[in-house]
């Protein structure tokens, strides 16, 4: 077979679909955006047509090896899906063994992510964009820890409240501290050492245990901030991990459920092939699994408010933020298949989530024990009286915000 010239340059759009040969020596390059972009090849072709009207930076950046930026990123929403990953690995399955491979032993996929993170950090630093934002290197990935998220309105409200109390210095100090925190984390990610890379990669792949180190990181800073409305970042960062998909979970189990129910997607969203059910979600028929299996529906479809039933669903979602292991697994089929599969798969996940929602109150006590380094909750016995008082109060008092996580029985699950 003829050797593929594009592959040698590292920019073959067809990946393993390519009819030409991709020699293995050339596959060790980190610039393996080719196979992944192959899935979005259709868009790539279309994009050429519009190249002169879409802003040029999209295409300029695409030559940087940035599948995390510009054209490559914008092509596919299922960018992180298992299908794409297999395309990468089938081409470079033995790349770890090849001598052309970088010495630190990261696969192409991982190297790409690390490069993406480093590049994004450089851009973030130089662009002047909003600092207090979460970040993820790719569409399907969970958020990278260590970035506290505030919207401009929240910060502004803090300023207004502080200036109403003549407390602007407090505000300024808090903001400066947050900025410093952000800069430190950004520098850290821009120049990762080997262990940093390992922890980042495991964070991105396995969204379960990694939130915990950020508890300590965020918690130490929290006490000196004058932002009483967000004292504990732990629950929010944990929430972000638990509902983000673990992309390595294959959608196979969801597909089995989803395929039969695909036709009964609510037609009201404008794209449907099923003419049969006029009110598929609302009526609570068993023929529409997406309706019946939402946990609050099962408790009584005719009640107007259904607050009790809803709290069942609400509790499972809230419990998402506190427990780590059980719920993300059940929630992943919905997230992983979010773009393609029907609501049924998410509904079945919700059902298991709803069912496990009631069990989850006992689970978190089991989960933290399994994690060696940090605990998710502090037993009451370990808290001082002042800390307990802070947790039980409606709001944290400045200067007294506890550094330890709250006891589980004070959380609303």
């Amino acid at each position, binding site marked *: 077979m003829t050797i593929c010239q594009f592959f040698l340059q590292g920019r073959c759009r067809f990946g393993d679909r390519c009819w030409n040969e991709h020699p293995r020596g050339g596959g060790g390059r980190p610039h393996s955006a080719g196979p992944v972009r192959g899935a979005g090849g259709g868009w790539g072709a279309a994009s050429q047509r519009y190249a002169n*009207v879409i*802003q040029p930076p999209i295409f*300029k950046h695409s030559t940087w090896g940035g599948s995390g930026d*510009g054209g490559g990123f914008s092509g596919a929403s299922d960018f992180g899906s298992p299908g794409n990953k297999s395309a990468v690995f089938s081409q470079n399955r033995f790349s770890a063994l090849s001598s052309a491979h970088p010495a630190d032993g990261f696969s192409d996929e991982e190297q790409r992510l690390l490069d993406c993170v480093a590049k994004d950090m450089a851009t973030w630093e130089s662009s002047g964009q*909003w600092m207090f934002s979460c970040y993820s290197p790719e*569409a399907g990935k969970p958020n990278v820890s260590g970035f506290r998220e505030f919207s401009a309105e929240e910060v502004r409200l803090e300023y207004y409240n502080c200036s109403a109390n003549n407390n602007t210095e407090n505000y300024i100090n808090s903001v400066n501290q947050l900025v410093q925190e952000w800069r430190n984390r950004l520098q850290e990610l821009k120049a990762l050492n080997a262990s940093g890379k390992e922890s980042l990669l495991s964070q991105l792949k396995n969204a379960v245990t990694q939130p915990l180190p950020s508890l300590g990181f965020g918690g130490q800073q929290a006490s000196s901030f004058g932002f009483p409305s967000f004292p504990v970042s732990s629950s929010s*960062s944990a929430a972000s991990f638990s509902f983000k998909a673990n992309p390595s979970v294959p959608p196979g189990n969801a597909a089995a459920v989803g395929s039969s129910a695909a036709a009964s997607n609510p037609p009201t969203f*404008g*794209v449907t092939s099923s003419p049969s059910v006029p009110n598929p*979600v609302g009526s609570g028929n068993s023929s529409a699994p997406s309706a019946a299996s939402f946990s609050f529906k099962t408790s009584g479809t005719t009640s107007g408010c259904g607050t009790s039933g809803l709290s069942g669903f609400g509790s499972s979602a809230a419990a998402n933020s506190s427990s780590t292991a059980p719920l993300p697994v059940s929630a992943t089929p919905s997230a992983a298949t979010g773009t393609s599969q029907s609501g049924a798969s998410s509904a079945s996940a919700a059902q298991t989530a709803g069912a496990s929602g009631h069990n989850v109150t006992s689970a978190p006590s089991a989960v933290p024990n399994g994690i060696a380094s940090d605990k998710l909750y502090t037993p009451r016995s370990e808290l001082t009286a002042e800390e307990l008082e802070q947790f039980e109060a409606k709001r944290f008092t400045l200067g007294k915000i506890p550094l330890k996580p709250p006891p589980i029985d004070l959380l609303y699950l």
Partner: protein
Amino acid sequence: MSSQTVAPRAGPVTGLYPALPAEERSGSRGMALPRLPAVLASSSAGPTRMSLFGSTSGFGTGGTSMFGSTTADNHNPMKDIEVTSPPDDSISCLAFSPPTLPGNFLIAGSWANDVRCWEVQDNGQTIPKAQQMHTGPVLDGCWSDDGSKVFTASCDKTAKMWDLNSNQAIQIAQHDAPVKTIHWIKAPNYSCVMTGSWDKTLKFWDTRSPTPMMTLQLPERCYCADVVHPMAAVATAERGLIVYQLENQPSEFRRIESPLKHQHRCVAIFKDKVNKPTGFALGSIEGRVAIHYINPPNPAKDNFTFKCHRSNGTNTSAPQDIYAVNGIAFHPVHGTLATVGSDGRFSFWDKDARTKLKTSEQLDQPISACCFNHNGNIFAYASSYDWSKGHEFYNPQKKNYIFLRNAAEELKPRNKK
């Protein structure tokens, strides 16, 4: 214009504005808001009716501006119509009245704790009508479907319903944290107000009852939402994204993995050719908008993101300045969209042709909000500081503006299919 007798108002008129050019009040049918003469009613208003509106003849037509065009200030480089008596602090939201009301009425919520209402006449003149106050900055506002009520959401953790006939406002919602979004839901079998808050809940309120009809938990603080029946899209902190279906009863439809890498800032639902909501546009702080279809035939090809609101990056050697996308609005007729950003520009885009239609000149302040009126003839955008650079760049003395632009021509799609 006709000159009929002035109808007495039932309630006190709050917020007296400084003396304005002659206000004209047409006769009313019991509403405090005047009814425009039929000749100006925009039932099938084409661009010809608006020929005097928003033309490039300079911004004196509104009868408001005292700025000479010789000054170097760049507060209105697009020479659009300025709304009279703008709020005294940053504008957080804009909304035009629904088609059930004759004429165009604009409400704007601001960080000065007030929400103001203007009548926008076809010749471009804006007449302040009334205002209501909260005890905290107003973050969002919307109209009821019959145009008689305005709902406002505020940092004082409440939402209020403002009856325009009586000019009274009552509290209809309560949260544990500031209420960031408020939308009116009109379903065949129920109507309610949906409020999203930083207390991580989404609550649905029957305005007659102090307890919510329904409470849904969000994974994180609600940052933005949009409702086009029967679909609602809510974007939260930590890149959360949830779509709800509103038929029969609001319920979560799907949690979607964010197509963007950074904080979500604004979301707007778009409809397909048969007027059914089919997807949404999501903007982030990183100068990027994602177009996401709910059930596309080919997700990899149909969903995409595009960069916007960045300083010219044609030379990749110099780092770009990246600005947040503060608002997205879809043209109700053409389906094209407008984005406004912290860089002080607005842009019009055609998402089906994947092209940019127009970018404005740069204003001297960020543009914090935008909206179209019900028939798409008017594009309103607010020029005020959005805190994107922190408190150092906040100047309480700087004037805030709301501009109106004729949107009938500029937002036509690129390719007629």
